């Protein structure tokens, strides 16, 4: 039985909950063998493979709900604060590098401070530093230095979620 190139790496990465990115060679292999991998993950683990032009990842019914929620809060707060600061938040998230100092400024001076303080993963600078490492392991950001990072295209997974909230609310209203 023959497996595509980098098969082991693909399974290891996706099973570790990582987002696979278009600039990774494994992504191309998954893309070229989308049907096989969809079937492979479904048959082997009952996981669903999701492949978009921005990322590949697998999802199961058993979800890391708390982490997902905190990532949403983090990106939501950052977007809100960037916009409030007169920045094009979408462009910044897509194309710019962030320094932890900037993140700290936004979070410590945010009007959402109560929400931040009540969140175990975002409540203070140490917690946020650990949180950034978690995002790095999941390939949602890429660390470019000790205190610097850029968002990867996996951030679109969460941005799409924000868009869906509005769509859902509009449908609810119309319904």
């Amino acid at each position, binding site marked *: 039985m023959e497996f595509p190139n980098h098969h082991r790496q693909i399974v290891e990465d996706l099973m570790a909950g990582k987002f696979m990115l278009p600039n990774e060679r494994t992504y191309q292999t998954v893309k070229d063998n989308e049907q096989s991998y969809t079937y492979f993950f479904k048959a082997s683990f009952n996981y669903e493979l999701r492949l978009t032009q921005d990322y590949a990842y697998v999802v199961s019914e058993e979800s890391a709900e708390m982490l*997902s929620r905190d990532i949403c809060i983090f990106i*939501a707060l950052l977007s809100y604060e960037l916009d409030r600061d007169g920045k094009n938040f979408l462009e910044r998230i897509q194309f710019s590098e962030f320094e932890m100092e900037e993140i700290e400024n936004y979070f410590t001076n945010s009007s959402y401070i109560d929400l931040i303080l009540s969140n175990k993963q975002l409540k203070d600078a140490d917690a946020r530093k650990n949180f950034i490492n978690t995002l790095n392991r999941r390939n949602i950001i890429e660390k470019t230095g000790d205190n610097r990072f850029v968002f990867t295209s996996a951030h679109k997974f969460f941005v799409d*979620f924000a868009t869906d909230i509005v769509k859902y609310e509009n449908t609810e209203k119309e319904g």
Partner: protein
Amino acid sequence: MMKAEPKTILRFLLEHYDVIAELFETQSNEGIIKFEVLNQIVSKHESDIRSQLIEYKILSPVNDNYEIRTVYFNLIEFILSEFKPMLPETIEKYHTSIAELFRKIRENINGDKVTLSQRLNDLAIEVRSFYEMVERNTQSLLQETRELKANVKKIDYREKIVRASRWIDEYIIPLNKILDINHSTSVANKLYEISELSNKYRLNFDDENARIQFEKLYFQLIQVNDNLLRQSKILTNELLPLIERIRTESIILTGWITYLKNPYKRKAPKLLKRKEVSVYSKDTFFNASEIFEQFKNETDVYFEEEENEAEKWIFDKDHYTKKLKDNLPVDNFFSWCNKTLKEDYKKVEIEKFFALTTLAFDEDIEREYGAKPQFDKIKINDLTLTVPKVTINQQSQLIDPNHGIS
């Protein structure tokens, strides 16, 4: 008939520009200048120029109110560059007027030269008006869009989505259609047709005057075409992406703000839960640190006291005393206890065992030990007890205190 000299009117406009600008602003906002508003403005500037405003035909009465005449309104609008975007339907009317003039020119090309000349002249005016209107509309849309982007008026995100969507659907897309040369019913396409005809007749037409007019029209159309192309590029390359981005950004921000209202009650998108942590994998360090990081942020955990649902066991002393007496003599009392309980219950709890051993203290029971203390080991569940070997007869006898259970 205008009695006043043109220079007098222009000087008047210059001298009283502040009053006129305020009247312009009022009409822009309210559509009309009310009688009392006119009085207020005039008295505020301490110059009663009401009669001149009427005499120079700057204002015209509408019922009891006033409005600035279109020609002055357009002039001030132009000077201030404060255009309001027009609905493309307004621009679309040029298609009819231009097409109609063009049809008449083509059909009567060999007709009366004076009429032809007049029509060519009118056509040039219409083309110029059309282009100016397109340019004004593009510029005003661009200005409004930039203001919306900078959110000068502090409008909320939902309103931004509505506004951006309306501009795209009602202004930009229809305007783009008007400027699309490949669209057979577009104004730009009609201008292209006129340009071809002008090109033909500017080189070959028996009347020299008309030939010159065709030539003028042809070069005007080349210029207009270039300008329209530039406007079209502004629309598609700058305005549309900018406004699309405002819309997208506003949708995303609206979504996030809605989410932040109560993130703990909303479902988050599904993220794979990591399961397998292999100690020999190259990610061991990260996996381990991820686990330890969770403990850094300990959450308060509350336990509710569980109620013991098992039925409480009550020792039936009479039943077991009878059973013991029936089995007398018992060679090894503690073994007998264990055996009897095992017969009655699937699982023997230590409390049942201790309850049963109390029979040995009954006054009617005679206990007997060997000369040397002997010990047995009894296993009850996971507990191993070391117990003395006690024989039970009928006569009463005291247990030696040195032979206790350990």
